[in-house]
């Protein structure tokens, strides 16, 4: 029973599997059993994960299990709501069913962030050129995901949008190419350069504003098992009208910031410490500030070329 791209299955079979909790998403480092009950999240999943490998049936083992369901029996019939349930009693706030794709994506993030201990996880996006990776550190409103999407357009491979997943033995990063989450103004920007069929419908009025997702491409999925060695880490800051600026920063500070951004560093302990220190050895860290996508791409291109030959 091998995994096949989702779109290769009969649509009816895939929908039945999603609703009965017998679909397992095999994506890079993790496999997740996904169970969905509402029309909207099912449609989103079939669209955004069309190229991803899945297995149907109840014989597949999975690292994690996610159900997106009504918070209780009552909410199933009145003022429809859903909540992501990763199976360990996480107290997530319910969302209106119209935002169920957000519940799905948040739930998948939670599943990894709170249950993975085999790899050290840092809150950052990762793209790669060949087998060398660029880590894009996340800061609220910093523009990580827009930059990630723009770099994808320039030919960089997407490893992951939400997490840098560090293999502690090899000091390399693993792929987990899920849809890239876009907020507010960046949605139209990315639709503009990637094309409408690459970006999901916009969810309006979410707790984080307007949200949409850019699908991972077939090439990203096909190469998701290939690790990449991180060479540079950038801390992006988008500011309207700002002149482009690049500043090298101290690796020691970078280490502390990465540790602070990690949901599992403390749990893993010693191996995470030595793994992180080994990873940082020979890397460079930069703060970049910019007011437009072209400027951000130029900055990245410059510092990449100067450090990575």
């Amino acid at each position: 029973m091998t995994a096949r791209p989702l779109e290769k299955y009969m649509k009816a079979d895939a929908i039945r599997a999603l609703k009965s909790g017998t679909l397992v998403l095999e994506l890079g480092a993790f496999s997740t059993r996904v169970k969905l009950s509402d029309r909207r999240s099912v449609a989103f999943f079939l669209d955004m994960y069309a190229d991803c490998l899945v297995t149907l049936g109840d014989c597949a083992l999975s690292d994690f299990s996610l159900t997106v369901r009504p918070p209780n029996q009552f909410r199933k019939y009145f003022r429809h709501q859903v909540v992501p349930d990763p199976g360990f009693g996480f107290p997530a706030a319910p969302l209106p069913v119209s935002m169920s794709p957000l519940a799905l994506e948040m739930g998948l993030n939670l599943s990894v962030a709170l249950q993975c201990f085999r790899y050290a996880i840092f809150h950052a996006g990762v793209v790669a050129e060949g087998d060398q990776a660029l880590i894009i550190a996340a800061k609220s409103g910093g523009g990580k995901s827009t930059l990630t999407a723009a770099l994808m357009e320039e030919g960089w491979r997407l490893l992951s949008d939400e997490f840098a997943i560090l293999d502690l033995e090899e000091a390399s990063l693993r792929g987990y190419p899920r849809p890239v989450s876009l907020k507010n103004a960046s949605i139209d920007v990315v639709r503009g350069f990637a094309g409408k069929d690459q970006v999901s419908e916009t969810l309006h009025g979410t707790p984080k504003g307007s949200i949409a997702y850019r699908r991972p491409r077939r090439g990203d999925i096909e190469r998701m098992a290939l690790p990449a060695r991180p060479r540079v880490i950038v801390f992006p800051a988008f500011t309207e009208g700002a002149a482009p600026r690049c500043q090298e920063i101290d690796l020691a500070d970078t280490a502390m910031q990465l540790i602070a951004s990690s949901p599992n560093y403390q749990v893993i302990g010693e191996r995470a410490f030595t793994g992180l220190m080994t990873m940082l050895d020979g890397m460079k860290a930069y703060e970049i500030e910019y007011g437009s996508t072209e400027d951000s791409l130029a900055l990245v291109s410059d510092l990449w070329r100067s450090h990575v030959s």
Partner: protein
Amino acid sequence: MTRRRRDIKAFFCIATGRAGLPDTPSDLAAFVSWAQESHILGQVAAVVTAEVGSKLYDILENARLRSSYDRRMLTFETNRVRRALMGADIQPILLKGSAYVAEHLLAGVGRRVSDIDILVPEEHLKETEKLLGQAGWRAEESTAGAYDQQYYRRWMHELPPLRHETRRTLIDVHHRLLPRTSRIRPDHLKLMADARLIEGSDLMVFSPTDRFIHSAIHIFGDGAFETPARSFIELFYLYSDLTGAERQSLMLRAKDVGAETPVREALWMLGEYFDIQAKGGKAPWLLKWCIRTVTDGQGGLVYLANALLYVRSHYMRMPLPLLAGHLWKKALRRV
């Protein structure tokens, strides 16, 4: 996927290393699913060897890493308790998970633990609380309100949970084994008198027999069976650690310390799920039905069984008038 009662017993067998993994992929998936939902993957990882590179290997390795952290955290917190009480001539008795890890017992391997539990004589309670407070452990916010603090100190068998101000870890300081108002009245002084020092430390643990008895008291005399698989595996390993002589004298000791009923119920459970034929196992029909239903875990009656066990746990802790008063005050607060 429907699971009949027979399969749960087989699952317990596999989870404690007495049988190999199921042959078919769907049976294996059912077992792993059960272990995942029951939060016992860490224990399973200790007795099962999976093929390197398989998904099962990843899952078990992940669980092993998680429980390693718990063990390290518990060991360090125990170390910190010793540090806080250094020089004070107080020898706390480690209870439950803390004791299992400190003594390297099977019951502690791969186990998920979150808090430390210690037992001190009532006359040392004030001093213990003071010293722990100086080392950073303060009363938890949720029970810091006046009524709850008062309730706790007057009726409970422990101080309100103390949380460390920087590490955020929790410690429960007990001075008896069950609340003053519990239906079961175990003689904690007898259990404490038989406690022994952990080698190279001034922390203590109960004797192996008393550890089993305390676990039975805690699970059958005080809990609502929220995690039956975990609890039953714990009792299985504690019983397995007893010598033949200790098993022979178990019921006598249980009667002597006032814990006959919970121990009989625990022995019934060991017969039911682990085929252990120990003399004296007995449990009321309704309790058996509730336990079987929640352990099986499927079907509409699980909700009812859980509700009954929940009511039972409160009933065990408080006589009715007191319970009504307590719930009333709590309800008022919410409004």
